[in-house]
């Protein structure tokens, strides 16, 4: 048996929007009760997420952080600044910083910034225990990964902050911008050259 047509205030010149919305809502509940309840639960989830995230120390922005970085807790944004390639080259020339390559090991082996250490973020669980005693806390670390939106260096920055490192910067656009700026690299010799 089809559901009874809901009754309620109809739209009128005195009540154009609220009454029309109310009537539509009643029809939606009558015709699609489960979908409407699912939508109500979704709204409840959105309110809970908003309230929780506003109070969470490691809460994140609803939209990406400046620089289109995702997953950065608001509290970490200023502690993980980005630098451009010109600044990175200055730091490299002055030997003021240690470069940390967050890319996969195979890509590091292919070519990397001279002097950079490999700390592949995708293998963090195995790579970090080997590296934790070799990574200085008193030196500026420049983290880089593949390019825009790669996210590995940012993620690594978060993990290092949680492990007590505070002198960290992210190379914006990472390896891509470094090679485009003709920054020095170490290439693995080809098989016949070995």
């Amino acid at each position: 048996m089809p559901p009874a047509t809901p009754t309620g205030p109809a739209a009128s010149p005195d009540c154009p929007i609220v009454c029309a919305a109310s009537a539509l809502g009643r029809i939606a509940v009558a015709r699609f009760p489960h979908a409407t309840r699912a939508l109500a639960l979704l709204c409840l989830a959105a309110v809970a997420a908003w309230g929780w995230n506003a109070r969470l120390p490691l809460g994140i922005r609803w939209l990406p952080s400046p620089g289109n970085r995702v997953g950065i807790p608001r509290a970490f944004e200023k502690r993980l600044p980005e630098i451009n390639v010109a600044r990175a080259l200055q730091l490299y020339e002055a030997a003021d910083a240690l470069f940390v390559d967050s890319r996969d090991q195979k890509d590091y082996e292919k070519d990397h910034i001279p002097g950079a250490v490999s700390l592949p973020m995708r293998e963090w669980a195995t790579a970090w225990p080997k590296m934790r005693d070799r990574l200085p806390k008193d030196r500026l670390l420049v983290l880089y990964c593949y390019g825009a939106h790669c996210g590995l260096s940012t993620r690594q920055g978060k993990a290092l902050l949680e492990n007590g490192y505070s002198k960290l910067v992210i190379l914006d656009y990472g390896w891509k911008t470094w090679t485009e700026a003709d920054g020095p690299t170490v290439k693995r010799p080809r098989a016949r050259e070995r």
Partner: protein
Amino acid sequence: MAAVKRLLTHPIFLRIAGLVVGAALLYASLDKIARPDRFADIVHDYDMLPVVAVNAFALLMPWTEMVAGAALILGVWRRGAGLLATALSAAFLIAIAQAELRGLKIECGCFDVSEMSSSQASWSLFARDIPLLLGSLLVWRKG
């Protein structure tokens, strides 16, 4: 066949299915709710959403799991919650399948979002999620 159908639509069976699916969703939501930043990283790795939507999805989805799971356990608006659970399970399956087909070696982000997690998106996780989808579907359609 009729006996199977009777069993699957029996109120006690449906209640148990709701409890199991609800508990799984509730448990799966906890770590993601505690660390939305890490879950956002994992969502980003799946490479299915535009960058602008990743954070919002990572904030909203775990709470949707939590609310749907709690509703299923409490038996409140069970079919509505079943519909949400079905949508979530289907989304999990699609996400895992596309990651496998594209050869992405990424963390699953199913229950644990820790950097030390070793749970990778894989066909075995895909298979594990199928009963979740079937249970959700049953609660939604017959609840």
